[in-house]
């Protein structure tokens, strides 16, 4: 395994810029999640690392070696697709042994390696089956085994869980996460599912319109978003307008003892968990109630007409039009710089 560095990576298709000056390092052995809305450049970044796209500007380095113009077959990169992309005319074992075969590994050795990986992924009994006879989850395991069989410099996973049902997705997510951690694989994990990225990745990079908005550990991304886009894209946030002065932020209807780097107009990002429902001097008018089973999501209006998202216990019987008392936990808000 090795580290992967993107230096000022830019990819344009005519006037359309898909990736715009991205600087990013995937550290040796880490799983880096890339999240962002559709069309933000996630897959283009992945394809550029794999060698299927040549950057308009910038460089791709594996362990400090420039591979920008190295063809895909010489990069030793494992690819896992959302659509599995298995070889339907081969058996599962032949699929997994294909990479080693291309590397010139002797037949007995590549068969042994394939069987070992299939056992590791708990699908040894499927070795002689054709991919078309397997379920989505089984096919994705085969895809992962096939990508790992070449002992890649970096494993690139392009939305591998999309299309799987929720229960299987959760199970597979945990299993794959544990496996990649055990193997200390350097991996880039592209997904639109923030929860998936948070659960599986050591760090997360948030992309928007081809630019890198923030990169950091999941907790940091969630708790300390650097800008309104990250605050709103990763989880849900309410952005409260205020004025910072002497270690306080005045929101107009209340004052929070939180420090900002500079005094003046600021925005405070508050997650639903930052609002303590049922107690406090503030009052909010409930405008929408959505029952989600384990919790109830409320949309309410603060005294200054700011709309906030609140989470209440699933058994609490809030109704539209209710006036609810609440307070803001200053430990759980973050002032955007």
């Amino acid at each position: 395994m090795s580290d992967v560095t993107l230096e000022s990576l830019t990819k344009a298709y005519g006037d359309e810029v898909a990736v715009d000056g991205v600087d990013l390092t995937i550290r040796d052995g880490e799983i880096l999640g890339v999240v962002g809305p559709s069309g933000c450049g996630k897959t283009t970044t992945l394809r550029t690392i794999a060698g299927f796209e040549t950057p308009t500007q910038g460089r791709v380095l594996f362990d400090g070696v420039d591979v920008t113009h190295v063809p895909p077959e010489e990069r030793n990169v494992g690819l896992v697709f959302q659509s599995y992309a298995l070889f339907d005319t081969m058996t599962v074992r032949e699929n997994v042994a294909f990479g080693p075969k291309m590397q010139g590994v002797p037949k007995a050795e590549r068969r042994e390696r394939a069987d070992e990986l299939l056992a590791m992924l708990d699908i040894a009994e499927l070795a002689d089956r054709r991919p078309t006879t397997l379920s989505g989850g089984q096919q994705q395991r085969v895809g992962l085994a096939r990508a790992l069989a070449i002992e890649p410099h970096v494993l690139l996973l392009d939305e591998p869980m999309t299309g799987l049902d929720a229960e299987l997705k959760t199970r597979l997510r945990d299993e794959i996460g544990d496996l990649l951690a055990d193997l200390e694989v350097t991996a880039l994990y592209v997904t639109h599912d923030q929860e998936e990225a948070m659960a599986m990745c050591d760090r997360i990079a948030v992309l928007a319109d081809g630019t890198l908005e923030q990169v950091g550990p999941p907790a940091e991304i969630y708790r300390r978003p650097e800008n309104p886009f990250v605050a709103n894209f990763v989880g849900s946030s309410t952005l409260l307008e205020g004025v910072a002065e002497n270690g306080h932020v005045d929101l107009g209807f209340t004052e929070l003892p939180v420090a900002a780097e500079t005094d003046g107009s600021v925005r405070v990002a508050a997650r639903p968990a930052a609002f303590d429902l049922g107690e406090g001097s503030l009052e909010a008018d409930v405008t929408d109630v959505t029952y989600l089973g384990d919790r109830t999501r409320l949309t309410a209006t603060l005294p200054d007409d700011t709309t906030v998202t609140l989470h209440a216990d699933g058994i609490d019987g809030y109704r539209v039009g209710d006036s609810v008392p609440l307070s803001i936990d200053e430990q759980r808000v973050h002032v955007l710089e």
Partner: protein
Amino acid sequence: MSVRKSATTSVRRIATLASTTARPTTERERERRRIAVLCLPFFALAIVAGFVPLAMLVRISLAEDTIWMDGWSFDAWETLATTPEYRRVAWNTLWFVGLATGVSVALGVAVAHALEKYDLPAERIVVAAVSFPIALPGIVVAYLITVLLGRQGLVTNAIAVATGQGAHGLASATAITGLFLGYVYSLLPRATMVLRGTYAEVNEQAEEAARALGASRWETFYHVTLPEIRPGIAAAAILTFRSGLAIFGTVLILQSHQVVTLQIHNEISVGSYAPDVAAAIGLVYVVFIVAFTFVGLRFVDDDAVEV
């Protein structure tokens, strides 16, 4: 159940089917009627242009007097079975069309690969140029070959100038190579059209996965693409081979190789008039085509391109 009872039940079923198709009361019956109406022109054409002429051919091939279609005789079939010349024509046709099919399909794979896998400059012009020969009559194809490879031909004279040889010795329009070129020129568009459809179904991500796993472009084609397009190749080969067997205009003009269509023409020409033998050859031809198609379709997946 007795045979009579079973037959009565079948007749009743057919009568009910005909009655409900004519006067449907359920949506399923109405759909059946729509299908019957849509298929009616085909069946009418199949009877008028297919079965009736075939029945006539059978009768001619067995007629003692082929002008008045009087009497019965197996002479034509006996002639066909015992004359070595006819076996030679059959063999000539099979190897020549087989080779032209092989070359056309191989070129078709290359052209379809280029068209579907790469962004070609002036792609529409390339597509038009490749599909153009399908609209040309065989006689025009023969003329084009003559213009290129005849004694006055452009290519012939260019080679003559380049090598210092005489154009007469280099002309190949009326040699078997000229005819072969004419066949390939006519068959290539058919092979390409079928293969382009097949290529559109190829899983590009599987090809990318193969390359990421270390396969070169050629290895990716050999291990991943080729197995995927195999049904398309079989379909293209069936279509091309059948079309090749039917070529007549080109071979009539260039005359450099005796194939079955030219032989039928010769049998009904003034001088060697033998319509009963021509009919027998025609029937063997039809039976062969039908059998070949059925056997060939076993190599084509259900979801591959229809031929």
